[in-house]
């Protein structure tokens, strides 16, 4: 069961959970704009998705944390 869960997680979320979380946030924002603010929200989605891709790529190539030299 745990392996199945791990497979499903890897399948949907992949290497960086920020990508999946970012998708949820962008879609939630669009939903709020459409249903609460009654705004035509199509213009939110492409830039929002682009920002999610930029963040997840930035995280992938960030500098490694500096580790103290071995004692």
């Amino acid at each position, binding site marked *: 069961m745990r392996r199945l869960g791990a497979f499903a997680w890897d399948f949907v979320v992949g290497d960086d959970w920020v990508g999946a979380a970012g998708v949820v946030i962008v879609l939630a924002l669009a*939903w709020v704009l459409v249903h609460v603010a009654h705004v035509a929200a199509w213009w939110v989605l492409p830039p929002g998705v682009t920002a999610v891709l930029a963040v997840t*790529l930035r995280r992938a190539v960030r500098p490694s944390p500096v580790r103290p030299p071995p004692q």
Partner: protein
Amino acid sequence: MNGLAVALTAFLASAVETVEALTIVLAAGLTRGWRSTLIGVAAALVLLAVLVAALGPALSAIPISILRVVVGALLLAFGLQWLRKAVLRAVGAKPLHDEAAIFARQTAAARTTAPAAGVDWYAFTLAFKGVTLEGLEVVFIVLGVGASAHRLPAAVAGAAAAVVLTVIVGAAVRGPLARVPENTTKFVVGVALTTFGTFWAGEGMGVRWPGSDAALPVLFAFYGVVAAAAVARTRRAVTARGPDVAVAS
């Protein structure tokens, strides 16, 4: 236009996954024998067919707006994963998917034990696992793209054409299809899945796209430009930071 785009997306995604599955099946078959390998392939195909038979009608019973939000969000997350990997591979921050190296590794591992008499469970498991895991991605993309666009036959035709073509070429070559431009294909599929995901998730939530379906090619072009810019920007970051760059997972 929509049907052709759906078929092409399913074709390219299925071709990439079939090439990967073929490498594993060839490694198992050529080193351990074909009987157990093909039984493993057949068992995996039966499992995938049962999944399609169960999920296909179930998907058509879900209201289209809910289906488009859920499947659109999943396609979007999936497309961004493909795009992220393709960008990282293009700039050298992640190793390219090397079919020849994977074939060599799988072949060497398969030679460590002698094939058993009767059903060779090593070959069976290797082929079954390879086809099932790669096939699940194909099933998800074909059902997701096909059902959301109401073009399931086009998606299935695209995927079937890719599987048949890849298997024919693989059988002729009798080796891994290392010369298939896998990363470029993943790039295109990543852009296509992100396009469909954005469009359908938006529609499902009540977003009205300017021009309706005509927004799809515009979105595809937009994300194509974004992907190209992401490669340039990420390459600059990798070059500037040199060996201090974290290894991309």
